[in-house]
């Protein structure tokens, strides 16, 4: 396996985050190698979205480090963060397309903001990405006129319009029917092969994960339950992993004390999502 010798692209080191007073990620370690598709899985509430947001520099952790392409994202200045974010692409769960811009304007936006290319070149580049995502011909539709699968593909097209080295994809198959979800997985695989991107996918869909992953990390209550190849995950004896694989609820593990704590936790204050202090 060549991947073992490839350099580490993302390294997460003892990452701890809180949501108000509640512990979300608990001294989490993770590393992603260049050129691989890493799928982060877990039930809802396992902290996978928080991990993603922290890796993007949207949330600040309580302690620990996230190093991506040599930059410590958790302690970076705003300027460094913006510099770093120009080299990555992010596709959000709901697409996060701008409702007042047409599809092609959405795709062109990063190019318009960050390059000095003329309008024609920008249009051609945007069209190429639309074509890759099989969206050509829909240039002037508004996001509200697109179907769920099209929105995800458009989000993906926008994420890769700057040809990033690193792509994050939040829940590619959530809210899609299985056929469209499988189609989207094909696009992700295509991106990895054609553009040699390193791709981090956050999902809770098993089929999707098994289709695209080079390695899978299963999160459980803020900790890594297992990290390995598909076969390793499937062969794991870990109860939590097996629960996830077999879609069993893991309620029996809650002790009365924990249950009491859970009930009294309601008052926990909300944390700040995204910083507003510039």
């Amino acid at each position, binding site marked *: 396996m060549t991947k073992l010798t490839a350099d580490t692209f993302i390294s997460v080191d003892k990452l701890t985050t809180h949501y108000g007073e509640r512990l979300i990620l608990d001294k989490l370690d993770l590393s992603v190698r260049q050129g691989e598709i890493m799928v982060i899985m877990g039930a809802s509430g396992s902290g996978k979205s928080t991990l993603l947001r922290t890796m993007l520099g949207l949330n600040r952790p309580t302690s620990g480090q996230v190093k991506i392409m040599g930059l410590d994202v958790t302690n970076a200045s705003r300027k460094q963060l913006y510099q770093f974010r120009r080299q990555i692409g992010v596709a959000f769960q709901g697409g*996060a397309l701008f409702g007042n811009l047409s599809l092609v304007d959405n795709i062109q936006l990063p190019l318009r903001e960050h390059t000095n290319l003329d309008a024609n070149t920008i249009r051609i580049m945007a069209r190429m990405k639309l074509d890759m995502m099989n969206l050509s011909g829909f240039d002037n539709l508004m996001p509200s006129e697109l179907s769920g699968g099209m929105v995800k593909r458009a989000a993906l097209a926008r994420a890769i319009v700057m040809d990033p080295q690193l792509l994050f994809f939040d829940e590619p198959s959530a809210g899609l029917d299985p056929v469209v979800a499988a189609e989207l997985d094909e696009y992700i695989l295509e991106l990895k092969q054609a553009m040699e991107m390193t791709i981090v996918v956050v999902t809770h869909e098993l089929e999707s994960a098994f289709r695209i992953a080079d390695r899978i990390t299963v999160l459980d209550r803020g900790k890594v339950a297992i990290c390995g190849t598909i076969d390793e995950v499937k062969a794991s004896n870990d109860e939590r992993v097996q629960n996830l694989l077999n879609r069993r609820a893991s309620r029996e593990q809650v002790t009365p004390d924990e249950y009491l704590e859970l009930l009294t936790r309601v008052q926990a204050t909300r944390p700040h999502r*995204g910083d*507003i202090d510039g």
Partner: protein
Amino acid sequence: MVRAITRLGEKTIEQLEHLGHLTVFLMTVISKLFVFPFRYRAVLQQLYFIGAKSTFVIFLASITIGLALGLNLYVELSRLGVQDRLGTAVSLSIVRELGPVITALMVMGRAGSAICAEVGIMRSDEQLDALECMAIDPFKFLMVPKFWATLISVPLLVAIADVIGVFGGYIAGVVIFDVPYGAYWQGVYTSIDWQHLNMGLIKSLVFALVIVWVATGKGFLLHLDKAGVYGAEGVSRVTTQAVVMGSILILFFNFLVSAFMVA
């Protein structure tokens, strides 16, 4: 009893915290108001939405206010035999108080609510996060154009409202009743001087800032809302809050500016 006091304290701290976030938000926008590059195109779009599209509502609101004011003041003034002073009474009330306040409340309700909902949806849809992740500063990209457009639109709308309102008073006094038109206009022209216009201008700028601040800030801080509801429900609640808070702040600052400038 102790519980009630504790609850009150909790609420107060909550509100103060929220106000603190709003203030930080405002300071951030202001610090970026003059940063290059200036987004003409975005400002233009916002001018269209906030200014041009509000003109007709402002026209309706101010003409009716002018008419009503003219009718009411005529009745009182003619009782004293000084209906010739109607122009003075109408123009002073409109230029100093009603023009700016009515305009600001209308803009808060029409454009302010829409801005708040728009920004709120962008927050709950992760569009603001998407901007961040595209290395586009949401403040410069979204907020600054809205601030400029509102700061330009509201004074212009107030001027339109003033003129239309005075004209409404003219219709009531001169056309419907028997005030000589010369007396009316002389009353308007001689009683209004730069002090009154100054007050109108200061008020309209203050109100503009309140409108755009509350509208964008409330939407932007949707995720910090204590009720913790995202999506459509959260957006609608925050929008209602913004309109109520904005309207009350407008009336409060109206009093404050009046008090300062009269004193």
